[in-house]
């Protein structure tokens, strides 16, 4: 992965992990980084505070390989979930191709999930984008918590219209991490193939 010469045909997809603070976005990315083969992953870059909260973004490039003559690559980003950091979140959303919305199953984060989803819609709107066009999957994370909220209840709050596919996750032990990424990647690539 060094110089790109654009005579070579490449496809680059930007996938963004969105969602409220401490929901587990960075944890998803760390798991992917730990598990995938060295030959397909680049370095992981994390801009975080002392206490490991994302400050600007995490970034991890993944090479899928060559598809029909196109070198295909995913750029995975996480945003900072804390409400405070909206300016950074907006910057990261620029050029997004697919979104993984990581929701927190902890009962006291119900409201934070809803607020983050509203914030996502608002930020997309500033780029004239909407969730009707950008592929998105919801990951209900922290299913391992003994007091995890029931999925139906979470879904009613995060996605009342039942519009988005979802996946259960327990990212700190890897649960659902790859399933979620694979699902959104497929949606992104299918949309790519269709739009042409």
């Amino acid at each position, binding site marked *: *992965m*060094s*110089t*790109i*010469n*654009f*005579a070579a*045909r*490449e*496809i*680059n*997809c*930007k996938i963004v992990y969105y969602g409220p603070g401490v929901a587990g976005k960075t944890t998803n990315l760390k798991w992917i980084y730990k*598990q*995938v083969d060295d030959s*397909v992953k*680049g*370095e992981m*870059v994390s*801009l975080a505070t002392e206490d490991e909260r994302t400050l*600007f*973004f995490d*970034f991890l*490039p*993944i090479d*899928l*390989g060559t*598809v*029909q003559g*196109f070198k*295909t690559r995913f*750029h995975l980003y996480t945003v900072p979930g804390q409400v405070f950091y909206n*300016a*950074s979140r907006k*910057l990261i959303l*620029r*050029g997004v*191709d697919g979104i993984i919305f990581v929701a927190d199953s902890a009962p006291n984060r119900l409201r934070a999930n809803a607020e983050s989803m509203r914030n996502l819609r608002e930020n997309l709107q500033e780029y004239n984008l909407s969730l009707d066009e950008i592929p998105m999957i919801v990951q209900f994370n922290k299913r391992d918590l003994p007091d995890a909220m029931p999925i139906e209840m979470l879904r009613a709050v995060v996605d009342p219209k039942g519009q988005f596919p979802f996946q259960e996750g327990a990212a700190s032990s*890897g649960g659902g991490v*790859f399933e979620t*990424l*694979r699902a959104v*990647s*497929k949606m992104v*690539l*299918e949309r*790519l*193939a*269709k*739009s*042409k």
Partner: protein
Amino acid sequence: MIEPSIALYGEAFAKVTASLDELLTKAHVRYAMLVDRKGFVLAHREALWAPKPPTLDSIATLIAGNAAATSALAKLLGERRFNELVHQGERIGLYVEEISNEGLLVVIFDETAPIGRVKLFAKKSIEEISGLIDSLGSVETTNADLGNDFALDASALLDDLFKGM
């Protein structure tokens, strides 16, 4: 799909490379790169004597992130843009300056290169390269022939990538 903002190949790519090479030699810097504001590495050159550089993708992503934050700051403060950025450590220095609208020149040097010299030759490169970039059209999207086969193939590769996980 995110695409590099500048379609740099063929003759233009060769010219950029030549300009970066000249910068390397004349200013005696370690690495000279052209990246775009989205974090793509468009061209990279390193001096023969320089140690192996850190991951270029990481550098480019951080430079682009930094540039995005800086330009958001400039706008907040009512400026169109802030010019060149120089970071100087004990041994290593970093110089970043906008090229045209979408490009960024990144120069990494050490104590063997006086900063004045780096800036002088960087400006010269910027002039050459911005002229070149402005004469290029915008990126043509590579939409040609993606179709069902593409989706199927990609899907198979995805399954492969995540096999057994």
